């Protein structure tokens, strides 16, 4: 055993050891200082960052309000739609992930890459970017089982709008579709991929139907897996709406116009609520919800009958003889006596021109009532000449023509009631006295929409109240104005309408069991030259596009039930012969089939 003792010099110099101790202490002091800096000086900040690390804010979707018909049948519902979302922050390998999604769905990788590139700025951090809008059910199961292996991919369940009746109510309900970039910029509560109202009531009543999204805090681990959630603000569901539409009646009315272009309205005159609202042809609004393909869009756009046009509020045409109801009212309002007569010999000479009555042989001596029932043009030429454009125009406007009705639908057209100022501004011409005559029989510049006619006839029936046309039961009726007619004057016009059904142009509507009145109208599409007018061609001989638009405005009462039914058929020819049978079928249903 060797004891290698070295009695001296085995220890280093003392100064060096002190230096070493100072070095150690100095470094530990540095660590303590750094800890103070991290944990106390910046502790609050790091604490906040730690919370941000684990907590993500997420929106809770609010269910959109359901829509039912007046009998409680669902017409707009929410169904779950399964979309494939991508949380970029959690994705480990973007290329591989997109390639896998492509393999599942068959969507080319370039398209997916493009979509991610396009949407990445629109999606907030940690929010899923919607890669595929709707996954078919078979695919859903396969992807769901595999999302664990592909961090960042997740199935996003969102409510999707579905309209069980499709085209039947497309012009009433409109549709929702994916929010656009402009809409996103306008409204910060919207997020990429949300569905918002784009047309119809879905658009106009968007704020009531949408509800408010809730917010939840989502606790996640570093791979983005959710561990739990805590609701911060619960979502509030959108308002449920009940349509004034009676689905069975709507369906009946809808098919009455199959193959035609036109509108058919059934209104409750006391409330302005519509029981049927038909614009044909229609489109399937479900197509829009998940995005229309360019082919589908082209088909709709290029259809010569324009299915997207909402004819009840957008098709403004000359009202033809229906306007005689308004002019008669204007005359009564202006003090024309119901007993004043005109003599019709088939034409009315005005200046150097001869204005013809539709009945070549003439009506003989007619008063206001006879003039309306016979729809005598000569009587109204004379009345129009007496009243002049100013009084006719003012009265028509007071009846709600030439202005929006305010119905809860978008893109309504105001139509047109001409006036001297309008003509000067628009055409740069003065108003010629001869134009008074044309205006008085509803031709010329006058343009009215079916909804305006329905509101006007309702006012005649309900005691004179112009009520805002409405499609829902949720709101109380809004009286917008009052007709400038006494009850006696209104009764005279209504009597004329009833007699028109009994012995005039609307005889087709006759029913023993109900009190029905009506007025037909024909809006000329092609101005007939005098020579052509002589030999009025038969409807069948004319090209579709040259045929006149047919109008009929009616009311029907039986016991305590009252309806206003207005029909307009584009290029339908004569009002009584084309639109008449349609309305007759409506009354048959309302007073016959439905009642029994």
């Amino acid at each position: 055993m060797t004891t290698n003792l070295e009695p001296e010099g085995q220890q280093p110099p003392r100064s060096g050891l002190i230096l070493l101790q100072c070095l150690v202490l100095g470094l530990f002091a540095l660590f303590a200082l750094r800890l103070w800096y991290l944990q106390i000086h910046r502790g609050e900040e790091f604490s906040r960052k730690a919370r941000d690390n684990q907590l993500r804010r997420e929106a809770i979707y609010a269910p959109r309000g359901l829509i039912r018909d007046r009998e409680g049948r669902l017409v707009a519902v929410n169904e779950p739609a399964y979309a494939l979302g991508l949380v970029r922050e959690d994705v480990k390998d973007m290329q591989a992930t997109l390639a896998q999604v492509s393999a599942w769905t068959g969507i080319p990788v370039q398209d997916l890459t493009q979509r991610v590139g396009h949407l990445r700025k629109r999606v907030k951090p940690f929010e899923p970017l919607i890669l595929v809008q709707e996954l078919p059910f078979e695919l859903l199961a396969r992807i769901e089982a595999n999302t664990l292996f592909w961090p960042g991919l997740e199935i996003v369940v969102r409510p999707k709008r579905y309209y069980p009746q499709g085209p039947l109510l497309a012009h009433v309900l409109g549709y929702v579709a994916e929010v656009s970039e402009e809409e996103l910029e306008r409204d910060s509560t919207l997020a990429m991929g949300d569905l918002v109202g784009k047309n119809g009531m879905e658009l106009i009543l968007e704020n009531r139907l949408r509800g408010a999204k809730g917010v939840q805090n989502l606790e996640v681990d570093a791979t983005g897996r959710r561990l739990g959630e805590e609701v911060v603000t619960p979502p509030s569901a959108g308002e449920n709406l009940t349509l004034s539409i009676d689905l069975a009646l709507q369906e009946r009315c809808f098919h009455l116009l199959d193959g035609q272009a036109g509108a058919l309205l059934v209104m409750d005159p006391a409330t302005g609520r519509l029981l049927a609202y038909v614009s044909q042809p229609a489109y399937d609004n479900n197509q829009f919800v998940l995005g229309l393909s360019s082919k589908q869009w082209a088909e709709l756009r290029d259809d010569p009958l324009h299915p997207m046009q909402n004819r009840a509020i957008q098709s403004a045409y000359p009202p033809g003889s229906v306007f005689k109801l308004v002019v008669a009212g204007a005359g009564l309002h202006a003090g024309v006596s119901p007993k004043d007569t005109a003599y019709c010999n088939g034409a009315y000479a005005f200046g150097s021109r001869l204005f013809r009555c539709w009945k070549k042989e003439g009506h003989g001596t007619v008063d206001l009532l006879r003039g309306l029932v016979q729809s005598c043009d000569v009587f109204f030429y004379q009345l129009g000449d007496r009243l002049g454009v100013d009084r006719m125009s003012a009265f028509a406007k007071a009846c709600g023509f030439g202005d929006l009705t305010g119905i809860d639908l978008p893109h309504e057209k105001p139509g047109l009631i001409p006036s001297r100022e309008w003509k000067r501004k628009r055409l740069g011409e003065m108003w010629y006295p001869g134009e008074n005559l044309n205006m008085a029989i509803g031709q010329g510049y006058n343009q009215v929409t079916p909804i305006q006619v329905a509101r006007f006839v309702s006012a005649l029936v309900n005691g004179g109240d112009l009520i805002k046309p409405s499609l829902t039961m949720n709101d109380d009726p809004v009286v917008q104005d009052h007709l400038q007619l006494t009850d006696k004057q209104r009764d005279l016009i209504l009597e004329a309408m009833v007699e028109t059904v009994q012995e005039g142009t609307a005889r087709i509507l006759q029913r023993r069991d109900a009190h029905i009145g009506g007025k037909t109208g024909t809006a000329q599409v092609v101005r007939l030259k005098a020579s052509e007018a002589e030999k009025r061609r038969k409807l069948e001989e004319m090209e579709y596009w040259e045929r006149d638009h047919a109008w009929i405005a009616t009311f029907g009462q039986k016991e305590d039930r009252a309806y206003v039914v207005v029909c307009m058929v584009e290029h339908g020819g004569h009002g009584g012969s084309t639109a008449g049978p349609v309305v007759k079928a409506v009354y048959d249903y309302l007073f016959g089939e439905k009642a029994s």
Partner: protein
Amino acid sequence: MSPIDRRVLFHFNWSLLGLTFLLFAVGVLNLYSASAFRLEDGLSVNPFYQKQLVWGLMGMVGMAVFMVFDYRHLQVVAWPLFGVTLCLLLGTLFFGKVIYGARRWLDLGVMNFQASEMAKIAILLIGAKLLSRGQRPLDWGHLFMAVGVGMVPAGLIVLQPDLGSALSVLALLGGIILYRGVRWPVLRLMVILGPILAPLGWFFLHDYQKQRILTFLDPGADPRGAGYHVIQSQIAIGSGQVWGKGFLSGTQSQLRFLPEKHTDFAVAVFGEEWGFFGCIILLSIFCLFLYHLFLAAQDAKDRFGSFLAAGVFFYFFWQILINMGMVLGLMPVVGIPLPFISYGGSATLVNFCLIGLVMNVSMRRFVFKQA
């Protein structure tokens, strides 16, 4: 002289033993929390802390073994041990198991064996033996011999590649050399050469190592990539604030935001849960621990014993320095664990053995003291 007599027991270094056990206990406790994952249905604890306990118990046995005989006998086995270590390191290079792209382990069937851990003991012995000879201050010959002997195993470890362990080995050897004292010209040369050689070393680094240095200089450049460790570590520690979030309540580690949380970044978990208060106490324990190692080196009865203790002191000091510096964001990320706190089987075993060696030196100091 019998290996153990009454005087040996009388001079038993209870403080060092107590501090070591204290550190180990803190480590296991912290590891329990660090290996817990929060899942949807409560906590799930990986059995890291159990393995650490088992390794620790083996380490204590090793420590006892390293205490019973007189440490001076070790001079005899220094060279043979060195030879065996070199063989094992070479064997690891050729037959080692590849884990995470590095060939660091020899598969012994029952367990994996890290030859680099054994190299730490071998180099400590050979360094202390070589440097205890010769004049003081150290002459060039002995200096080059010691450095040369250290470079061979260090080079083999770098090839695995395991830069962290290689640097620890060199720190151990360099510490003994510094402790022994070098001539002023030597020190001056080292001070001058250091800054010149360091940039040259850049070219020998792996890409991932270069990236770590760049990341250290600017962690925000790639917050979800290379800078992630650094940023998450600082968030975890910083969010502990003064008093910490409490045991098992650290969100950053249990939600897996903090990587390597049971190994190199274990102290970040500690910082998050125990706060500034706990960290200062832990730092103080480490400081006392180092102080007792230092005292053991100073009070040793001969140069060999003194250098053994000094080597161990530098070995631990270096690891604490690098690991704390890294976790606190003061240094680039280097894979060096914090002694007794980080999880690591063979490292824990070797740490206990080294402490045993120092205890051995410390309790046999009486021979000189009495004289």
